[in-house]
């Protein structure tokens, strides 16, 4: 990034891209164009954006079921993402994975994982690989507060700690595991206490809706991990606007007024206002970015729709590698 101004505008563009992408996915899901289930990232855009903007192409990330934002922020191609979500042959996984399993190994996106905490051990292995390679690559693993009650989470905190793995734990605490409040499920105010108290891993609590705060915290964490200081735990306080996943009839048991409070903390709108107030960007330039992003999303959908569905017998391919 050339300067601070460009950096801030880049953060805005990425967040906006995620927001618009996710809005379109929700719409197309509701219309029946997208099969299966999708977990919307709306409301949490600042986390993926602020973290991944600190990463190099050869750094690696592992994502979870709510993974579209992580993919976009790491630089994944929107066309191939949308095609995958649409179940098309041209998708990242040839239509075999769908919304929950997008991966692009060429950009260090080692896959989104549909099992809560299931990606954490894999991330530990990727971090061990980085350590064995002897360079300064880092690995970031994204997971939610719900993952912190899984055994795999605890096993990996321990492993990362004793092996001093170059691993950033990026926990998106959106307050709920499906409909279960995190305070009930963990008995804690902040799940990062588990990393600091139990495993000696430094933990930081960050406003996950403030992209600059996320960016700065991740920058510091990534620099330390890159320098060989061992793992760091970042807990981003945020909120998802949609239900756990898009499905007709899925009850959302969270208090309605909670959502209203968090909507006022919208990561995209608030950052946009700050950019304008501080004259980082003009209204005109902002509109241009909005138009460009909308066009990209439109192009991605067109690409997906123009792409062929897989042949039924393609189901037999890729069980094993040659």
């Amino acid at each position, binding site marked *: 990034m050339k300067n601070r101004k460009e950096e801030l505008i880049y953060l805005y563009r990425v967040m906006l891209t995620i927001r618009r992408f996710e809005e379109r996915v929700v719409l197309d899901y509701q219309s029946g164009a997208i099969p299966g289930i999708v977990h919307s990232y709306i409301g949490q855009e600042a986390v993926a954006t602020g973290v991944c903007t600190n990463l190099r192409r050869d750094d690696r990330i592992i994502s979870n079921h709510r993974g579209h934002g992580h993919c976009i922020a790491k630089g994944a191609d929107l066309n191939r993402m949308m095609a995958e979500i649409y179940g098309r042959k041209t998708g990242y996984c040839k239509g075999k994975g769908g919304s929950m399993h997008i991966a692009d190994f060429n950009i260090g996106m080692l896959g989104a994982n549909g*099992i809560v905490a299931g990606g954490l051990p894999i991330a530990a292995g990727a971090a061990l690989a980085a350590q064995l390679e002897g360079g300064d690559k880092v690995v970031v693993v994204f997971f939610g507060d719900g993952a912190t009650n899984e055994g795999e989470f605890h096993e*990996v905190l321990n492993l990362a700690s004793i092996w001093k793995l170059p691993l950033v734990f990026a926990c998106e605490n959106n307050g709920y595991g499906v409909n279960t409040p995190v305070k009930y499920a963990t008995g804690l105010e902040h799940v990062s206490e588990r990393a600091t108290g139990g495993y000696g891993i430094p933990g930081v609590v960050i406003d996950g809706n403030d992209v600059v705060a996320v960016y700065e915290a991740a920058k510091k964490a990534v620099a330390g991990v890159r320098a060989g200081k061992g793992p760091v735990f970042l807990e981003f306080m945020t909120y998802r606007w949609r239900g756990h996943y898009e499905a007709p009839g899925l009850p959302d048991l969270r208090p309605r007024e909670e959502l209203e409070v968090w909507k006022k903390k919208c990561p995209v709108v608030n950052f946009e206002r700050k950019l304008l107030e501080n004259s980082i960007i003009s209204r005109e330039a902002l509109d241009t970015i909005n138009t460009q992003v909308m066009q990209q999303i439109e192009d991605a959908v067109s690409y997906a729709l123009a792409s062929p569905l897989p042949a039924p017998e393609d189901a037999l391919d890729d069980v*094993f590698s040659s």
Partner: protein
Amino acid sequence: MRKISYEQAASEALVEEFRRDEKTVHLSTDVPPDLREEFGEARIRQTPISESSFVGAAIGLAGSGFRPVVNVRMATFGFVAMDQFVNQAAKITYMFGGQARFPIVYRMTVGASKSFAAQHSISPYSMYMNVPGLKIILPATPYDIKGLLKTAIRDNNPVICFEHMALGAMEGEVPEEEYTIPFGRAVIRREGSDITVVALAKMVHESLAVAEEMQQEGISLEVIDPCTLNPLDKETIRASVARTGRLVVVDEACITAGAAAEFTALVVEDERIFRRLKSSPKRVCGLDVPIPYSPPMEQYALPSREKIKAAIREAMA
């Protein structure tokens, strides 16, 4: 030819492959001293007793260009990490559309016979056979474990190597010169004309002993060791049964929904073979109980030479 133990043969396979490919990494709670000495702490890595973490870490290593070998020790401990085996290792190549390779070897001991009781005795390979995406090998001799393990380490997929606990000290001929054994080729351990016996792991040796004894009664057994369960050499088994018209499967895993049922099905589902059967196929398997501790009960729960003979006589009648 020189004779070495099953365990030594496995160890030789590892040493040779670790010399051959510097991307190999070993993860285990018990560190093999010879490997540690030659290849160092970084590559021969000691893990805490934390199966999910290291079974899964192997996937991340493999996806990042390494070639991990994981010694899980007993198959019963492997169950602690079932998410990583079944949801992750087995599916990751497929659900990402084949864009990355995951070369991993997981070693686990199976079987019973040592009064280790239920939580240290089991033969769960059919559970894994029901999971597409995992290659499964089941070496029964020192020669086989060396050659199959070397192939497993070079394979670009997750491979589970099941090793029977009673075979570790068993000695057998292993050549000095290098060799590998391809997957998916059953070995006819003994040729015969009256009845086909498909036997797994330790039961290969029990069945061969039975074959020797029954030869004196004038019954000729053909003993087949599938060697690898995925890929499975169906053709060798089918061809043998088409010739003999009789099948007995011997496996110490519990009888219900086991590998033995699969072998039986692949024979009777083949119309051509079905019509040539002279008697219904028989299974000699472990009983449907957790493995008991006390020796008389444990022996009762497992196949024995007497049970194998009884099944063969029944099939011949």
